């Protein structure tokens, strides 16, 4: 069963998904066996499974295959995102390892849900059919709803889960209705066929098509947290266990953008004139509302939630530009964004001891000198989020802005760069707290643990290396979008 045979092709293209979903169920079964509260069993098993899934993806990285009658696509794009999602989940497991024990949420289900959500994300990125997109979306979202509410004892966690679930359910409804209308207008849910149909049969005035596409975009806007469908983000991000916030802020957004790119570039290239102005408005609003609101936050988790809304806006700048290079820029940006967001939330998850949650800006006061590693890492993540060289965040922004300038969207880019000046103000607030403020009263405890330290150091290293020598990731991103158009 090598990837060359017919069966092998099917098997290897689905291997990461098989490993993750079978592994998640195995985790649930293992949980039946008795274990102590501080057991490393579940995270270790999850780590192993993710490494296996990553290795399987890497092994079959050159395989190109269309499974399930063309509903599931194994191509460069899928491989890129599978590796990204597996890496995100890997980082989340490392960060959660000690955090889950500390907050008494160290159950096998936690890691099982993490793996299910990862599988859902992979399905979203790999799907070539709206039905598969929806399946992946639901698999990811349902797992995330539970994860957000995983700290049952905390009121905020419950509230966040409920809010996320209700608004997410609405979004799913919009999404599904959009699919139905599109099916009515084009007679297919397959992205390729839809694109071909629209190319052959001009449908410019068809309201069913336009409304369907609009509803689909609304569904996506919810998932990527773009204004005006961002309301759930700050509450869900703030209430969720911090490592879950790290995971979903990186993974869910990347998955949403992966599917959005596929849908827009495969099915709707003909409608570019329709969706580009719309997304321009959404991009401007997301950047501006996200950044300006973030200025007012005192809770770093909330601040980063608004910052993630703004980053959705930057990414949409690339999507608006359209084309292959813009897709590559989005991939690069998503990879870098995932690292810096995972890192920033990961550092926050170290603050406080026991079950306490200390994520105010003031809680960081003086932490930079008390724990140099924490300070350096958080500074690197903040500067990277702000797009300051020589971090990868700068290269990512440069890439996105350059494709937009190339496509002639100079005013949009000017809005975006001015927004990044606004943004640097609140990123610097975190740095100011770390190094320039003295703690009021008892300094906040810092709970370092080896797995989280490994994860955070690796992420800082990646940001700096890709900030100075981005060529490998750049080429990878470019290669991965070759099959997309």
């Amino acid at each position: 069963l090598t990837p060359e045979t017919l069966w092998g092709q099917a098997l290897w293209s689905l291997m990461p998904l098989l490993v993750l979903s079978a592994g998640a169920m195995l985790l649930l079964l293992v949980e039946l066996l008795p274990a102590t509260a501080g057991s490393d069993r579940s995270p270790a098993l999850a780590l192993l499974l993710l490494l296996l899934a990553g290795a399987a993806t890497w092994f079959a990285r050159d395989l190109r295959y269309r499974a399930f009658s063309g509903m599931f696509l194994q191509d460069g794009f899928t491989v890129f995102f599978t590796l990204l999602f597996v890496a995100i989940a890997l980082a989340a497991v490392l960060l959660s390892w000690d955090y889950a024990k500390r907050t008494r949420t160290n159950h096998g289900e936690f890691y099982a849900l993490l793996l299910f959500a990862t599988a859902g994300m992979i399905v979203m990125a790999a799907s070539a059919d709206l039905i598969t997109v929806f399946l992946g979306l639901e698999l990811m979202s349902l797992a995330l709803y539970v994860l957000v509410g995983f700290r049952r004892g905390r009121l905020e966690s419950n509230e966040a889960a409920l809010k996320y679930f209700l608004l997410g359910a609405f979004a799913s409804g919009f999404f599904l209705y959009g699919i139905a209308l599109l099916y009515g207008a084009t007679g297919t849910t397959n992205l390729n066929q839809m694109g071909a149909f629209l190319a052959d049969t001009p449908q410019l005035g068809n309201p069913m098509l336009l409304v369907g596409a609009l509803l689909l975009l609304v569904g996506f806007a919810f998932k990527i947290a773009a204004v005006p469908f961002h309301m759930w983000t700050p509450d869900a991000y703030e209430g969720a266990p911090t490592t879950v916030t790290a995971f979903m802020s990186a993974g869910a957004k990347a998955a949403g953008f992966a599917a959005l790119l596929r849908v827009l570039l495969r099915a709707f290239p003909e409608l570019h004139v329709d969706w580009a102005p719309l997304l321009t408005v959404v991009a401007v609003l997301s950047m501006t509302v996200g950044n300006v609101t973030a200025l007012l936050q005192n809770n770093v988790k909330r601040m980063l939630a608004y910052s993630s809304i703004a980053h959705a806006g930057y990414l949409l700048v690339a999507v608006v530009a359209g084309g292959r290079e813009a897709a590559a820029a989005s991939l690069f940006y998503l990879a870098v964004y995932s690292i810096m967001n995972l890192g920033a939330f990961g550092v926050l998850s170290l603050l406080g001891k026991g079950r306490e949650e200390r994520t105010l800006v003031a809680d960081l006061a003086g932490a930079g000198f008390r724990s140099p590693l924490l300070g350096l890492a958080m500074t690197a993540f903040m500067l990277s989020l702000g797009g300051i060289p020589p971090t990868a965040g700068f290269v990512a922004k440069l890439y996105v802005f350059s494709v937009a300038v190339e496509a002639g969207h100079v005013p949009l880019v000017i809005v975006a760069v001015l927004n990044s000046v606004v943004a640097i103000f609140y990123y610097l607030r975190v740095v100011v707290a770390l190094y320039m403020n003295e703690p009021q009263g008892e300094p906040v405890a810092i709970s370092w643990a080896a797995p989280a330290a490994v994860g955070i150091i690796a992420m800082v290293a990646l940001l700096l290396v890709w900030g100075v020598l981005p060529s490998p990731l750049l080429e990878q991103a470019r290669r991965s979008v070759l099959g997309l158009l």
Partner: protein
Amino acid sequence: LPILSLLVFLPLVGAVVVGLLPRDNHSLIRRAATLFAGVEFLLSLKLWTDFVTRAPGWQFEERLEWLPRWGASYHLGMDGISLLLVLLTTLLTAVSVVSSYRAIEHKAKEYYALLLALETGMLGTFVALDLLLFYVFWEAMLVPMYFLIGVWGGPRRIYAAVKFFLFTMAGSVLMLVAILWLYFLHRDVMGFATFDLESLYRLAIPGGVQNWLFLAFGLAFAIKVPMFPFHTWLPDAHVEAPTAGSVILAAVLLKMGTYGFLRFALPLFPEAVTVFTPWVVGLAIVGIIYGALVALVQPDMKKLVAYSSVSHLGFVMLGMFALNSQGLAGSLLQMLNHGISTGALFLLVGVIYERRHTRMIADFGGLWKTMPVYASVFLVIMLSSIGLPGTNGFVGEFLVLLGAYRSNPWWAVLAATGVILSALYMLWMYQRVVFGPVTHPENEGLRDLTFRERLVFAPLLLLVFWLGVYPQPFLDRMAPALERTVQLVEARRGITAPVGQAGQTRVASRGAEAGGGR
């Protein structure tokens, strides 16, 4: 031997080494930092001796592929302009390190590491010949300076540090958009994509686009210089920064703005320079007079020196936009002079601040009796800042005024009032601080300059007289680079479509002037 790479990254290595030293061993930390800054200065002296004086073009050039896909390369090189600014940077960083021994007691390790990291950023900015590489250094340099002000500064340090960061970044992000625009323009016209400065020099840009690009570049540089009315971050940053931070800020960081004009804005957008010269010169003259007037009424010595910087940098800009060889030479010389004199003035303020923990002019008086050596050093530096003949300031200001006069006599007339005003505020300040009876008993027992402090001032005093009496070696080294800049501007004004009647007549009149040779 890739000497420029060595020069740029040696301080960064030093920063890492210092960062890894044990926190409590202060003398080891100081010695290591001094060693790296000193070796760095010696390395730059080797550049001075190896530099071929009369040769045009780039020297010590290095080029490596960096982002081949984007046409960005790791391209370093040096001409007379960058040579002098590099020497200024390495000298003043070494001076700053030595001058900080006593001033910085806590968190010394981080302090020296950041100072060295800052040096890498500054040097990189001066020798990068690739626009993207330049931008990376230009922005990265903000981070260490932000920490130096924010952690080791005065009471309002956080406000000042954030303001410094935001102002500079606001200007530079627009420059980034302009860089990208230029980049794609070059790709569309010339057929290949590159950020390389030499290729971009050869690009003919339509007049209207030039104006926008010049505005974007000019804003970034004008904020850094800082030109009136973008100077408001400067007094805050200077007053709150620790002494060494102020020295570096005044001596080197401000020069990055003027260097940016000289290296990028002028040669890349010659047509736009014609259009905007009256505006830039106007703002420069306003800055000269306004800075001097505000300096006159400052009760705080550090703030006085800060506003005098606004005035002096006005001279630099005026000389540059006179766009003739005298003006440009004066402008570049004045950059060095300002670095030496104002750097020394901040050090002088730092010396008495360390002893008295105040910088108010009113708290001093009669220092001539208690600190005679200090008072003499102060006298020389103060006179060089005013521009007394025999000191460096005279040569620079004279050339600037000469160049300005050749372009438009009124510019010189207006700017000359700034010279008079500078004498007024400096002499008055000196009189109140140094002469007269000792009015405050606390000043009775003040210690004169220590051996270490004399060591800090010695090279600066040497340069004051060297540049004042025999500036020829410096002028010789900068001449080919400045000639080339004038050529790039003048020669390429005819290439693109005319921007209007005014631009045409100006070119013609300047050509006649140059030919006539007053």
